[in-house]
């Protein structure tokens, strides 16, 4: 098992290297130059040339790339062309916000998606099943920004129950310790601020979770229907097991295996969705940071954030494989 894990982790390196080469090339192929963008419309060519030299953008791309790799080997992701701050520091500052949002969204999607899927399968073709089908279709097909705007309007403006945007009420100025808003507020012993941070999380989490929950619900329903028709389920019922035990202990366990793969893949997709959700909800995460960087042609930030996203994606895939093995003894044999 340990050997398998070491091998899988080592296999990440070439993938990350490839990602880096692609991102480095692509970001330099998009038309437009960071110095021009940074200086805005008021700059003369002399000002632009001076800044290009200052940012080493006048050097050959290969030289820039090797310099970047050299820094990377020492854990240095370079400095943002826009702010001049170290990219790693800037990413670490924003990572907790993205993790907080996406992990909670994952939890919410699991809590909503799995029971709904199970219930729809058990009560297949009932009114509930049909209703869920319509709602999940809406959940999958509605663009995130539209759903976000709808929630902001209903819960933020009309009902006034929840804040429209932001990560905390601006009037609570808690000192970041861990970077996780709720945790920081609790560490300060400020229950009011913790609740405030929690309320701020609800809308963006819902938007981010909706897509995953809907996909997962549909998937679990179909998987459950298939499993419930299997011979071993009939045997379990024939043995006289209660329906609850049949559904949860026997059928669900088998249906969850393929669902796990879907969750892994969709979680990565959800991180992509975080870019938009973070922008709409003014959420200070790395998705938004990356989006701004692309607009500003801030090469080191584009590279750094892509690297982090790629790493999260790959680690999620690894985690899913490990969890599958834990759930399914047949898979474990291949890992030795």
């Amino acid at each position, binding site marked *: 098992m340990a050997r398998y894990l070491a091998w899988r982790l080592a296999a990440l390196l070439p993938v990350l290297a490839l990602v880096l080469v692609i991102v480095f090339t692509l970001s330099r192929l998009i*038309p437009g*130059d960071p110095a021009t963008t940074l200086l805005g419309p008021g700059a003369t060519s002399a000002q632009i040339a001076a800044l290009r030299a200052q940012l080493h953008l006048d050097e050959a791309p290969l030289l820039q790339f090797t310099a970047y790799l050299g820094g990377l080997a020492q854990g240095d992701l370079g400095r943002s062309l826009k702010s001049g701050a170290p990219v790693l520091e800037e990413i670490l500052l924003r990572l907790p916000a993205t993790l907080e949002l996406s992990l909670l969204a994952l939890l919410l999607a699991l809590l909503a998606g799995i029971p709904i899927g199970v219930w729809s399968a058990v009560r297949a073709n009932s009114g509930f099943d049909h209703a869920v089908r319509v709602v999940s279709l809406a959940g999958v097909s509605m663009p995130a920004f539209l759903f976000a705007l709808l929630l902001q309007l209903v819960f933020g403006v009309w009902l006034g129950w929840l804040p429209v945007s932001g990560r905390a009420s601006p009037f609570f100025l808690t000192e970041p310790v861990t970077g996780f808003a709720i945790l920081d507020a609790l560490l300060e012993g400020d229950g009011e601020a913790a609740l405030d941070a929690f309320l701020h999380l609800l809308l963006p989490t819902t938007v981010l979770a909706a897509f995953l929950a809907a996909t997962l619900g549909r998937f679990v329903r179909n998987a459950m229907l298939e499993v419930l028709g299997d011979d071993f389920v009939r045997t379990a019922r024939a043995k006289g097991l209660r329906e609850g035990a049949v559904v949860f202990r026997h059928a669900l366990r088998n249906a969850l295996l393929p669902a796990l793969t879907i969750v892994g893949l969709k979680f990565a997709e959800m991180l992509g969705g975080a870019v938009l959700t973070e922008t709409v909800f003014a959420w200070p995460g790395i998705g938004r940071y990356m989006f701004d960087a692309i607009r500003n042609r801030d090469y080191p930030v584009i590279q750094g954030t892509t690297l982090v996203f790629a790493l999260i994606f790959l680690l999620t895939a690894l985690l899913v494989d490990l969890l599958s093995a834990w759930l399914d003894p047949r898979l474990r044999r291949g890992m030795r």
Partner: protein
Amino acid sequence: MVLSRRMATALMLGTALAGRGALAQSDRQARTLVVAVSSDPVGLEPAANRAEPVGSEIILNIFDTLVAWTPPAFKALEGRLATSWSISPDGRDFTFVLRPNVTFHDGTKLDAEAVKFSLERTRELNSYMKASFGLIREITVLGPLELRISLSEPMPVFLSLLAQPQAGIVSPAAVRKLGDGFGAAPVGTGPFRFRSRAADTNIVLDANTEYFRGAPKLQRILYRVIPDASTRRLELENGGVDICQQNGQLTSLPVEDIKAFRANPAIEVIEVSSQIIRQLEFNNNNPDSPVHDIRVRRAIAHAIDYDGLINGVLGGTAERVYGPLTSNSWAFEPAMREMAPNYDPARARALLAEAGHAPGSLSFKLYSFQGSLWGSVATFIQANLAAIGIKATVEQTEFPALRALHVAGRFDIALDGRQPWYNDPDAHITIGYLSSLANTAMSFRMPPDAELDALILKAQTTVDFEQRRALYQQVQRELAARVPAAYLFSNKIIVFKRANVKGLVVNSAPPLSEYWSVWKEAR
């Protein structure tokens, strides 16, 4: 069902608790001004500021400058840290007397040494100011509160530059103590002192109760970073922010939103004339382009329905502009109103025929910035051009990509804009039309023109105010004869604020607000 009831209970409980919290907060909120900005400031350091709007505005609330523009007309300078000043007859030496008993936020005293230190620091570190502050030959401290700035050549615009955020006076003691970290904890003499900054979230300033013009009425300013325009609108309507500034950007809020705000009694819309110019630019530097022919340029300029564009597409949020300077500039040539091409499609068609272009024979790519409003402007012009037999395809391009095309000269016609970063005709004319700068991003692309260049440089360096005005008026007439662009409109600076926010003074060029005089009435 049980689940949903539980959820509803939890939600209601949460709301009730939040409501209680809100009561406790209300006192704090009443004296806190929340300002929505679209992005994180690039920096809060005068010596690194490159006229980026968010950072510039915050800098002007933390730091003071020697002089500042006098509201509401913003046509004359008044003293801030300087009580008086004089300029030598040759326009090279500026002598300032400083206000006594002014202290920085760190408790140190403002003196002539601090001013010398700050301006020299900007000259050394800020590449953006190289062309202007590079002309500072020497700064001489004449006494504790008196200094002289000597330039290597006359530069009448220099005084105006001293009102800019780059010329903010910093605390030398704090710079020495913090070094590179000064930008993260800036110390000035301004009405507000820096408190904290959270990346992509907010910037918090607290009132400087010792401020020399009197303590601000507000206790705190909170800049909230909200990148999405519709979210900014919802937050303003909801009272989550007090002020939302358009900052002269077309993309900030759609015209429909502005109309909705005008109908909302809780929100006031302030509209102020700006010095921003938006134009349809011609690449007159490419001999192979049809627009190299002045008749084609004239025809296009006559094809555009300027009033229709301003009232229809822009919903009255812009004003007519007649030439290279806006009509609120002190150097504006009144004759430009008559000289500017009017909407006359028949004349446009005749000019095209004269230039030898049959209807339908000309086609262009019309480059434009992104955003729905830029798109509408481009579509409107596309229709205008179609009416005189020119086929145009609209290409909306990201800012960096459009700039790259522009610098390389790979376009015939493009929508573009100029936002002067300091209050002087020089900001539009020199950078825009000096043909020696024609291959830079900022300039109109015109062929070499020694006569015009000489006139522009003379206007830039003439010390006498009236002579200078006459020279700029001549420049405008000369440019009208050359048709470097079809000047479309000048969009107003639009600030949306909650109705209970009082005392706001909106600066027109550059559009940066100071919040010293602002207060909030109890709602």
